């Protein structure tokens, strides 16, 4: 193999890594919501992927409303405002979903809540089709998405923004979980709900907060995803939602850093398989890897194996 070949291979490898990391950030952000809700309630909120879709549509609606007021060098503030408002809308949606659909069933068997979650998911998907129409819509550009070339590797501005915002959100999340009273309460609840309520933790508040936090992250993912792939539709949340769920399981469900790492792994694996000659089997291979990892580490990469008392 000549030197030129090798450097070409290295360039392609790095390019795929860039593509993969960008694709993984969305899975990571969505996976965090799955894992946090599982942490406090021990159930999978299947409507979570659709909250991501609502985030994208919130951005679709807010952008033409807000961006004209932030022309020129003010544009970054406008983008932040669109992002924060969409996150707020999703947080509110998450809290309302929990309050109306899941809270009344909290004492019921977990299966009941799980089925309700699927119902909420379908409600959002088809409600979305009813409200927005089912054909894909081009997401309005928030900024001029140019490309940067570094040694034959092409990096889009949107990729930098997606990875940067995700990193900032992860730092903020880790601060909230580790350094705030509500974060402490979340961890306490996740550790032992009964004990937490005995020492005065308000379960309802903490659960609402968890749903709000997870949904806000999904909303951010929705906006970032739409900036990166500017075509949105009411069923756009199904596929990323499913893969993010897998990412959460892969990282060890209930484990926050695990979800982020799991998301990145899924994104990178998927990209490398997509670029290989097995591209037709991309999803199948990504899921096969999950099965193999779970065979060896049933609790996921970062999860602790807990024996349930029966």
């Amino acid at each position, binding site marked *: 193999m000549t030197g030129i070949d090798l450097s070409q291979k290295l360039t392609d490898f790095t390019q795929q890594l860039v*593509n*993969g990391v960008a*694709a993984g950030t969305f899975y990571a952000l969505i996976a965090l919501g799955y894992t946090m809700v599982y942490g406090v309630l021990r159930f999978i909120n299947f409507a979570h992927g659709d909250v991501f879709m609502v985030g994208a549509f919130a951005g679709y609606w807010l952008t033409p409303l807000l961006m004209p007021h932030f022309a020129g060098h003010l544009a970054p503030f406008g983008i932040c405002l669109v992002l924060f408002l969409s996150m707020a809308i999703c947080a509110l949606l998450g809290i309302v979903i929990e309050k109306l659909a899941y809270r009344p069933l909290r004492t019921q068997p977990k299966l009941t809540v799980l089925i309700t979650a699927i119902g909420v998911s379908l409600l959002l998907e088809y409600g979305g*089709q009813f409200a927005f129409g*089912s054909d894909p819509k081009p997401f309005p550009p928030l900024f001029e998405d140019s490309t940067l070339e570094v040694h034959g590797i092409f990096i*889009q501005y949107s990729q930098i923004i997606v990875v940067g915002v995700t990193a900032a959100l992860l730092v903020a999340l880790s601060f909230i979980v580790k350094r705030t009273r509500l974060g402490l309460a979340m961890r306490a609840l996740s550790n032992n709900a009964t004990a937490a309520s005995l020492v005065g933790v308000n379960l309802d508040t903490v659960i609402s907060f968890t749903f709000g936090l997870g949904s806000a992250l999904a909303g951010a993912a929705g906006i970032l995803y739409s900036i990166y792939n500017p*075509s949105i539709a009411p069923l756009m949340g*199904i596929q990323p939602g499913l893969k993010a769920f897998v990412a959460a399981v892969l990282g060890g469900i209930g484990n926050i850093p695990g979800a982020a790492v799991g998301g990145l792994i899924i994104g990178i694996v998927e990209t490398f398989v997509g*670029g290989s000659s097995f591209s037709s089997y991309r999803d199948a291979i990504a899921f096969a890897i999950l099965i193999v990892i779970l065979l060896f580490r049933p609790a996921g990469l970062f999860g602790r194996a807990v024996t349930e008392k029966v």
Partner: protein
Amino acid sequence: MFKLFLPAVVALGALTLPSLLSAQDITVGEYASLTGSEATFGINSDNGVQLAAEEINNAGGVLGRKVKLIVEDDQSKAGQPSSAVKKLISSDKVVAVIGEIASSRSLEAGPICQEAKIPMVSPGSTNPTVTEKGDYIFRVCFIDPFQGTVMAKFALDTLKAKKVAILSDVTSDYSKGLSQYFTEYYKKHGGEIVIERSYSGGGSDKDFRAQLTAIRAAHPDAIFVPGYYTEAGLIGKQARTLGLKVPLLGGDGWDSPKLAEIAGNSLDGCYFSTHFSPADKSAKVQDFVKKYTAKFKTAPDGMAPLGYDAMMILAEAIKRAGTTDGDKVRDALASVKNYEAVTGNITIDEKRNAQKSAVVLEVAGKENKFVASVAP
């Protein structure tokens, strides 16, 4: 009194209703992707069908009866066409069915029409297997072995591309077939397919950078993307952000006003084959463009005249059969010869396909430029 009256009314109704119905409209069913990832296919072909039906009815209808269309939306989704067509046949009692553009969806509904012996006319499904499902299934467009050859020839002779990469949609029969026929001709005549990658269409994949990065490494002279416009638009955009500057080639799946809307200017200078160009100077085409633009306030794409032709040929067949009886209409459809349609001269061959020419268009902003017309 009441007890006597009621059966009398029912009996009277039973006697008069069927005769009233038969003296009234000829119901024709249509299933189309009016919403979803291929919405413009359904909307524009349906516009064509509606325009044709309106003209037929203004001219006195068929066999002295009005044509009544019943349209079902299949949302561009697998599974919907079969329920739509079952409903059209069993509950609306349609005499014939028009649909679909996407081959996978025509393949789904075709066998149901065949089973019920209800003739089905597809405006724009180009995969050859669509009409092989049975002798009640027809189409008014060319098929992919021809379309694939046209584009392979174009790549070799006009673009002088010796190495082509293929990026196809693994979920679409249309895309798989078209890439197969393209490859067959292209390889036989000295071209080389340097790399083949695939994606999942129907709006599920939106990030094609992984495949495009691999394609970039293979240094092709052109990329053949035999998919639908929703994906082709994004693929064009992402190819350019990865520094891929070679032209992209496509089939009639690109023919949508949404293509440029999604792709921006990234597909300018790329080429696709389709059924029709509004720039065609023939009187039949110009007349259609004028009528269509007047009614829908927008210029027709390639799917609109196909819908129009499908409805017109069906009406012609019913007229010649002299009845709406499925078998007779089928026979009349099978014997269509040299019918002057908007999309060209249609002769239905023994495989129930239309033999006619294709056009190659170049993407140039919102307009498409006419490049060549290729006879079969």
